[in-house]
């Protein structure tokens, strides 16, 4: 019998996983979901909750670094909560994903030179807002890309920096609506008197 806490090579390999969860849009569910991580002392690196393409259904995107074993168990325990419609775990190459970062910098760093402007252009970032005292730069991309821009702007003085949680879409062709239809059709809700499913 192999140790379930190890993978087939006998080592505990940690990787970044993206968990995508569909739930009913109800108060308290975020807590219900995060408790599953807290219990195992797992740290959530990014979390995003938003509406999905189906009304009344929320989509959670959670990113964390852990072992395959651990993440699979966590997903099963999330799935079993009553108002959770589905939970799926993806490795990096199974999803398309994006994050957005905002950088608030002093307006004066744009004055009297082209260096900052060049950085913005080279990084495919854009100017979101221009105020008398500050300018907000926006960049979408993966973490390494938004971090790289931050590093470049740092020496000019960044007043505030914020990066969103990841949003992701799986590479599978499954349509959320179809998935929900399947759930609705599923007939495994009760046992009849013969102990068989009706």
């Amino acid at each position, binding site marked *: *019998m*192999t*140790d*379930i806490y190890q993978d087939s090579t006998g080592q505990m390999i940690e990787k970044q996983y993206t968990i995508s969860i569909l*739930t*009913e849009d109800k108060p*308290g569910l975020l*807590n*219900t979901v995060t*408790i599953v991580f807290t*219990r195992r002392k797992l740290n959530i690196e990014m979390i995003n909750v938003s509406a999905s393409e189906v009304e009344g259904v929320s989509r959670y995107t959670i990113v964390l670094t852990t072992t395959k074993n651990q993440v*699979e*168990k966590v997903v*099963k*325990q999330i*799935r*079993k909560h*009553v*108002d*959770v*419609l589905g939970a799926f775990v993806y490795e990096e190459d199974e999803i398309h994903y994006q994050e957005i970062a905002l950088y608030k910098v002093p307006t004066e760093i744009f004055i009297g030179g082209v260096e900052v402007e060049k950085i913005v252009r080279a990084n495919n970032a854009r100017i979101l807002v221009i105020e008398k005292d500050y300018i907000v730069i926006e960049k979408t991309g993966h973490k390494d890309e938004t971090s790289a821009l931050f590093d470049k702007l740092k020496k000019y003085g960044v007043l505030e920096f914020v990066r969103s949680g990841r949003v992701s879409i799986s590479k599978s062709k499954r349509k959320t609506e179809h998935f*929900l239809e399947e*759930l*609705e059709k*599923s007939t*495994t*809700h*009760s*046992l*009849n*008197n013969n*102990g*068989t*499913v009706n």
Partner: protein
Amino acid sequence: MGQMDTLQKSSTSATKKKMRITGSEAVILSLLEEGVDTIFGYPGGAIMPIYDSLYHYQDKINHLLVRHEQGAAHAAQGYARVTGDVGVCFATSGPGATNLMTGIADAQIDSTPIVCITGQVPAHLLGTDAFQESDVLGISMPVTKWNFQITNPDEIPGAVARAFYIARTGRPGPVLLDITKNAQFGELDFEYTPCEKIRSYHPYPPVNTTDIKDAARVINSAEKPYILVGHGVLISGAEKEVLELSEKANIPVASTLLGLSAFPPDHPNYVGYLGMHGNYAPNVLTNECDVLIAVGMRFDDRVTGDINQYAVKAKVIHIEIDPSEIDKIIKTEVGINADAKQALERLNPKIEKADHKAWIEEFRKLEKIEYDKVVKRDIYPEGEQIKMGEVVRMLSEISNGEAIVVTDVGQHQMVASRYYKFRKPNHIVTSGGLGTMGFALPAAMGSQIGKRDEKVIAIAGDGGFQMTLQELGTIAQYNIPVKIVVLNNNFLGMVRQWQQLFFEKRYSFTEMTNPDFIKIVDGYGIPSKRVSERKDLQSAMQEMYDHDGPYFLEVTVEMEENVFPMVPSGDSVSNIRLE
């Protein structure tokens, strides 16, 4: 089985009439719609409107006033475990609700269907640190199968219907409804429709045909197959199907703590009780079997010991209704995610007849060793002092193994599990997963209310008994005829045993100076007796058993008795110690 009865009961009694009533009355009517006739509870400010409505329905609902909310939760658990129906308890906001939590956590880990209704401060005071306000939803979230706060009276019937449906279906568990006072006072047009479906909740996964085929193939080619039965067998009512599987292919059967009473203890294929203080053969031979068929159990660490040295030669087939349990602890060869009864009904016809006589004989050989080294000395001791094992053996004989035995937690629990012969299903009520001291007395009370015509025996140690002994008040007030046996060794015995074996006898805060229990019980008007000598034991026990009404028996047992066999914590089941 119980769950199906209830399902049917509720679906035939749906009312179609609409009435303008208060939220608090709607709570009571909704409970009646679910077939509730018993509530264990304790009133207080935030739940007073509900209690006021209950006052008018005393002819339909039997409410028992407990002495502490923990007692209400455990009583509801006891009721649920012996009847298979949902146990119900009431408590007020704040401390009333927080006192329920131990029982709720216990029900969660031991898959027990209970619905807890707590009062809450009015909605406009939520989050303001109002008097007796606590975040009951937040506190109970990790220990409930589902919880919900009702702030609007219109939500009441739907939420109650959902609560009962969730509590009793699939892997059962506790549900909490927190109802603000304004929702209790407010009015609604009452109409009740039982819940039959929740799109995000699929309590009975369909049996997968491929899994059944795979499992049958593995079992049919096994040389040393071995069945482990857990609580899931009792919950799904699969006792007959397990028996059929065992007899058809001649497979030995062992039980977990909560699985006890699922398989007849006198059956030639029954090999005993698993776990840290379980029997010798079923533990050791786990590492000899080549196919392990686990039914409705979850490989608790008290059963497996070190998982790296568990079932080392076995292909594991795991039949389990909760998908998150499959591959959680032990990697399976075949996981069958389904109700135990449904799965076995499909599996059994595919099983070929087989003869594993020599394999079962291996268990019998080890059983003989255990009998000579441990059992004999426990149940027929020759020393001067009374041993826990002989008390349990006598109880088992007097009751013919047919009483409902409710235990507390600790040494006496292990001894009771080892030596009581549970001949009727669902006749052991014990706190397995959580190990809650103080469980026995209130749970016995609830069990007795659930099964009024059966004998209910609570067995507790002197430590656990004192954690909830105030429930003697409830037992006396309602004349609940439970028989209470306290095995008194003036120690927190199990902790002391570990201190002796693993902490070089440093008895750090395990010795107890106890009160005169007889005087206390006498204060409640409950008849009692104390026995310290063996010659008085049999007759005292018989007297207790035959007594019409509650009875308390204190037995002074050997102070430093140890429970063996024992798998040292974190060690392999193969290294189980006989002494």
